[in-house]
């Protein structure tokens, strides 16, 4: 039996949130566009939002509409890290962490908060606030841990470091944990499994690598950072040819017929000034729309395709915004997915 299993039905304004999920002693991330129902799902589990269905934790029913069970939030053993952390502004770090009844004396120490114990939340940095929020949520030793956008309130330059820190803290917490985020990279870093929630439904649930390797639909592919090119597919000489609206042809080793999308990851794409003569079967020529350095790499946007190449290559090629370039990728690195008619 999984420590946390739930089957929920929450009516929202535009659609109903319907999710079935079982979580072991692991971190599961929920990603998806804003308004998909991610926060609502967390609130329903915490007992802060009316819901129908069933939630059971270690065999205890927190919610069982059929039997009329619906524990109030204060009787569910749940730790919540709210978006923007919701620290009590009038209480010191120590008082915040000890607000839950079973205060754990060693907690401040383990979270590196001893020196900040008597400080009020407004004097803390974003990363410190997050640690306080997590320590506070874990202090009563909850059976389930929920985090709502724990990295959204942070500056871009501290985010990476704090994400690594959070990853370790969540691993140490070692209990069923749900993390809501809109960023796939955050989800992939923090979680062992990632669920993609769109309009109240789980589109796909699996390890991050699985979502990248075989996205269930174009939305999941876009979310994982892939290039998604829409066109019309037909079989051609053992491969599949996808005709783009621009007239260009993309070849793939996957099979597809009719409306489809090609999914290509930026790190599978190479960039050159002129069409190269190599094994890559797909070449898309276009104007360089943007050059964005990311660490030692550069994200190059050529026409509708984004490539990720080393900073060295970018310099060697003399790429500049507005110049012409060719993006190339292999047929075997190109996934094809049917495009749902909407």
């Amino acid at each position, binding site marked *: 039996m999984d420590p946390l299993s739930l089957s929920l039905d929450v009516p929202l304004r535009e659609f109903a949130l319907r999710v079935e999920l079982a979580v072991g002693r692991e971190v599961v991330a929920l990603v998806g566009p804003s308004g998909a129902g991610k926060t609502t799902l967390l609130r329903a589990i915490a007992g802060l939002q009316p819901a129908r269905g069933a939630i059971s934790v270690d065999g205890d029913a927190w919610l069982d509409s059929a039997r009329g069970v619906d524990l109030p*939030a204060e009787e569910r053993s749940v730790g919540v890290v709210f978006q923007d952390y919701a620290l009590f502004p009038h209480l010191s770090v120590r008082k915040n962490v000890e607000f839950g009844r079973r205060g754990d004396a060693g907690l401040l120490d383990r979270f590196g908060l001893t020196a900040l114990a008597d400080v009020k939340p407004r004097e803390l940095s974003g990363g410190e606030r997050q640690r306080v929020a997590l320590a506070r949520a874990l202090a009563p030793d909850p059976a389930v841990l929920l985090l709502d956008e724990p990295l959204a309130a942070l500056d871009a330059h501290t985010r990476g470091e704090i994400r690594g820190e959070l990853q370790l803290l969540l691993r140490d917490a070692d209990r069923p944990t749900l993390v809501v985020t809109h960023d796939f990279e955050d989800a992939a870093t923090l979680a062992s499994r990632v669920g993609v929630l769109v309009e109240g439904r789980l589109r796909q649930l699996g390890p991050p690598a699985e979502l990248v390797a075989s996205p269930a639909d174009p939305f999941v592919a876009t979310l994982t950072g892939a290039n998604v090119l829409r066109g019309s597919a037909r079989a051609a000489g053992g491969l599949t040819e996808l005709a783009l609206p621009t007239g260009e042809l993309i070849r793939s080793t996957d099979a597809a017929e009719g409306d489809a999308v090609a999914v290509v990851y930026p790190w599978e794409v190479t960039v050159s000034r002129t069409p190269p003569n190599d094994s890559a079967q797909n070449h898309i020529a276009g104007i360089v729309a943007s050059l964005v350095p990311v660490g030692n790499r550069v994200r190059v946007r050529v026409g509708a395709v984004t490539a990720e190449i080393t900073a060295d290559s970018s310099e060697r090629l003399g790429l500049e915004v507005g110049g012409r370039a060719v993006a190339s990728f292999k047929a075997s690195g190109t996934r094809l997915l049917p495009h749902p008619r909407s």
Partner: protein
Amino acid sequence: MRHVFAVAAVAAAAFALAFLVLPVLALFLRVPPGDLVHALGTTAARDALVVSAKTSLIAHAAVLLIGTPAAYAIGRGRFRGRSLVLSLIELPLVLPPAVAGIALLVTFGRLGLLGGTMNALGIHIAFTQAAVVLAVAFVESPLYLRGAIASFENVDATLLDAARTLQARPFRVFARVALPLAAGGLGAASALALARGLGEFGATLLFAGSLQGVTQTLPLAVYAQFEVNLDTALAIGAVFVCFGAAVLLVLKLIPGWTRSVSLWTFRSASSPSA
């Protein structure tokens, strides 16, 4: 032309200020300060001071004790007819005090709505000190409730949710989170309500009368002494000016108090926060 208007506007401001300040100053200038202090020593003034202090404190304590949880329930609650409840609470604010006094009389008086029941229980309120307490509570509580409801509405709902997920039961959520976070606004509303209660005249006069040493409060004493001993009336007036100034000073000086709810920017209690 533009600077003509600017000069006229400044002149208007100066005129308005003089109009408001001059009568207040006159209270102090008519009689030397020493005589004012001496006039406060008269029996009438001392009796009124005692009656006012006693009735105001009892009424104010009751308003705080009942009004604070009531304002929390209304401020945080989402229920049908909430706007109606808010309007009913504010209604006494716009009533002339004399109307409030009559209303109290026909409710709690011997021949009033609850008079029969209270007679049977041997309770007689009209024209006693209890009547003063009721009158003061009746006129000051809408002011307190309005400010307190707005203060509780301003408390971030997520913080209350966070407390609940930390196993806090409803009273703990109220006492440890909502109350301290609303404290600034509650303090401001409390000070205003206290000042309003101390100044109550019309409702008290009609419902409790003006019997020296029993129901004659400071404002009633001003009116009574006006014909007997003008110095005493002026001295009591000066006490009110000092008290009022102290209340305003406290409201302005304590930043936390004015941040959530101030005298000037009372958020309408009828607009719920998101």
